[in-house]
């Protein structure tokens, strides 16, 4: 095993240990202990208003697979979906999720199914709530536009891997006067979201969605662990830069 692998293992073990520690021994913290991110307040309000008004929520999960780096933001989207489906389980119009990748589409259907099963409302489950709208970025966008522009959809959330085609979905959502919010792991999509979404989530803010929307205690614990690991990473970069400057590495 080389030094890089060893450093990787230590980093992951420390990260996992911190998540487990905060979840197990410091579970009492609430999202109010986190810094204020206005997007999450609006998302919470958007979910509540949609449920009260009998309108629909749309969650776009993008077209990244789950077997590589691009899958992280899609998996965060699935956590968000679970939270939304739980909140809207009594709504007249259950939420809808669109994806451009088959495994994400099936996981979104599975998320709906398990939430409705846990809420004893399995009859509400509709496989079409988790839609695969296309298999290329633009065909995905073309299919998602139909959902985002539906007048019954009052909130459009984005969490996943997108490219520039996210602009087309955002435009459809804006023309529908719905709330638009979300983030992506892709920098191009991130820039478009910043310009076009009402409440963009920048960088790691997206990954904190589960903590702010209270999906489960592990999300809050992982945000706290992330804060520590960020310092560890920054320290490592600084030490590396100093060692490099003195020719020691």
């Amino acid at each position, binding site marked *: *095993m080389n030094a890089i692998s060893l450093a990787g293992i230590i980093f992951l073990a420390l990260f996992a240990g911190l998540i*487990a520690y905060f979840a197990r021994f410091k579970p009492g913290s609430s999202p109010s202990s986190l810094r204020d991110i206005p997007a999450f307040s609006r998302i919470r309000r958007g979910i509540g208003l949609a449920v009260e008004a009998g309108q629909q929520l749309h969650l776009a999960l993008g077209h990244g697979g789950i077997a590589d780096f691009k899958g992280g933001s899609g998996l*965060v989207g699935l956590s968000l979906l679970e939270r939304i489906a739980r909140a809207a389980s009594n709504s007249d119009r259950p939420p809808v999720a669109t994806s451009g990748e088959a495994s994400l589409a099936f996981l979104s259907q*599975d998320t709906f199914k398990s939430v409705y099963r846990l809420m004893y409302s399995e009859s509400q489950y509709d496989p079409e709530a988790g839609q*695969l709208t296309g*298999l290329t970025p633009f065909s995905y966008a073309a299919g998602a536009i*139909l959902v985002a522009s539906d007048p019954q959809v009052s909130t459009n959330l984005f969490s996943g891997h997108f490219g*520039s085609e996210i602009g*087309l979905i955002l435009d459809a959502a804006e023309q529908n006067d719905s709330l638009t919010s979300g983030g992506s792991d892709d920098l191009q999509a991130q820039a478009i979201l910043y310009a076009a979404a009402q409440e963009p989530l920048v960088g790691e803010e997206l990954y*904190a969605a589960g903590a702010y929307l209270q999906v489960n205690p592990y999300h809050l614990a992982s945000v706290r662990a992330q804060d520590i690991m960020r310092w560890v990473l920054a320290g490592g970069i600084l030490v590396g830069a100093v060692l490099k400057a003195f020719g020691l590495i």
Partner: protein
Amino acid sequence: MKSYPFVYLLAAIAIASGAAVLVGYFFPSLAGLKGEMLDWAVIFTAVLLLIGVISLVRTHWRKIMQDQKDRAYSLVLIFSFTLTLLVAAPSGPTSKWSMWLYENLLIPIESSLLGILAVFLLYASARLFNQRMNIYTLLFIGTVLLALLGWLTIPGVDLEGFKDARDWLSSVWAVAGVRGILLGVGLGTVATGLRILIGADRPYGG
């Protein structure tokens, strides 16, 4: 709430598979195990793709049958799917006619969407002033304008200063910002992966 024993089996499979790939990544002697798991993942993904296509067609077929709104789009999808299947299935995806469909239908349609996107982005940048008028918005628009001016070539006008400023912005400030964002995204992705590895997040029906 009910608990389902099957959920624990799913969690065990997910955790064991994830751990096997992770261990294989760090220990070269176990790379074979990682490769085996990834091969299985590729096979499952291919099967899911096939089921996904069937599901997509079924959804749109139902829309047509139930006379739902926007059924015209569903009709176009079914027609395009059938045409592509008839052309590509007998001769393969890289045959002359498959490539003809790709080059003369798919690429022009996607290019036109890209064209619309350019117009939308311009519109979105202008709308940003109304939506969020703050220092960051001004910085965003200012950077966009400076980058655009840096790309311009006007005969008889010396825009070297703008080009230098654009290069300085993109190679110093933008790269630093991008690295910061990517570090955040990386940390978030690792945290998401670890939550799944320790069974805290179960997006597979748990």
